[in-house]
């Protein structure tokens, strides 16, 4: 899976995480680690660009759960490293969905979210400018 980060400033700074390929058991760690690094660098709002994400399994949903907790919770401890911060995230039981939004998931990815009962919890956009302006 390819992950590309960029940052834009709308009403607030938004970190855009562009995904391409497959989000599965072999790649979800990469996304979590990117989220941890982004948060450590000051990111508070994430837009996940899923337009080129061809496949997502339940491992991808684990990554989404971690990102929700990452963006919505207290800052992860500085200097803890990625492994320690992952442990912190797993231990959290709250988060703020408003700080993580989805852009253009494919029908296959949407169906997985729907079956898992997660689709309705996310703000999902089809237009990038609208998504950025929504934060």
């Amino acid at each position, binding site marked *: 899976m390819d992950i590309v980060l960029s940052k834009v400033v709308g009403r607030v700074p938004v970190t855009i995480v562009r995904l391409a390929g497959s989000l*599965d058991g*072999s790649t979800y760690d990469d996304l979590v680690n990117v989220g941890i690094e982004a948060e450590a660098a000051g990111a508070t709002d994430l837009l996940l660009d899923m337009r080129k994400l061809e*496949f997502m*399994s339940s491992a991808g949903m684990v990554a989404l759960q971690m990102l*929700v907790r990452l963006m919505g919770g207290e800052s992860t401890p500085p200097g803890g490293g990625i492994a320690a911060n992952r442990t912190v995230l797993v231990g959290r039981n709250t*988060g703020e969905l408003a700080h993580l939004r989805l852009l253009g998931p494919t029908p296959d990815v949407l169906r997985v979210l729907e*079956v*898992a009962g997660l689709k309705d919890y996310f703000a999902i956009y089809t237009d990038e400018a609208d998504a950025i302006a929504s934060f």
Partner: protein
Amino acid sequence: MKLDVTLHDLAAIREFVKAGAIKAKLNAEKVHEVIIAVDEAVTNIIVHGYKRKTGPLEIEVTAHKKMFNINLRDQAPSFNPLMFPPPDITLPIDKRPIGGMGVYLIMRAMDKVDHRTLPGGGNELILTVKL
């Protein structure tokens, strides 16, 4: 398909199963559901059965008597994924335990799922969808 499997083989396994499902003339939505189920099952074998290390896996795809079957045979310690309690999918994402959705997705995608412990050790998971 026989291989010493790791998580990095998931994409190739999905392609293998996808080709069989298309050949069996499953519709596009069902093909995706089958791929999801196999991906989840194989991930469980690697993560829980082989503790994230490599181990042998045999995948057999057959279409017979209006049934499409995927047989997954491993040599991991006996492990029946059907014994997992189902997740509470009514909980919002920010209140849910992390993980635990894989078996649920398998059960939702397949018409029938069977597990048996192999006589010489290991497991066979049989995923079935009606044609």
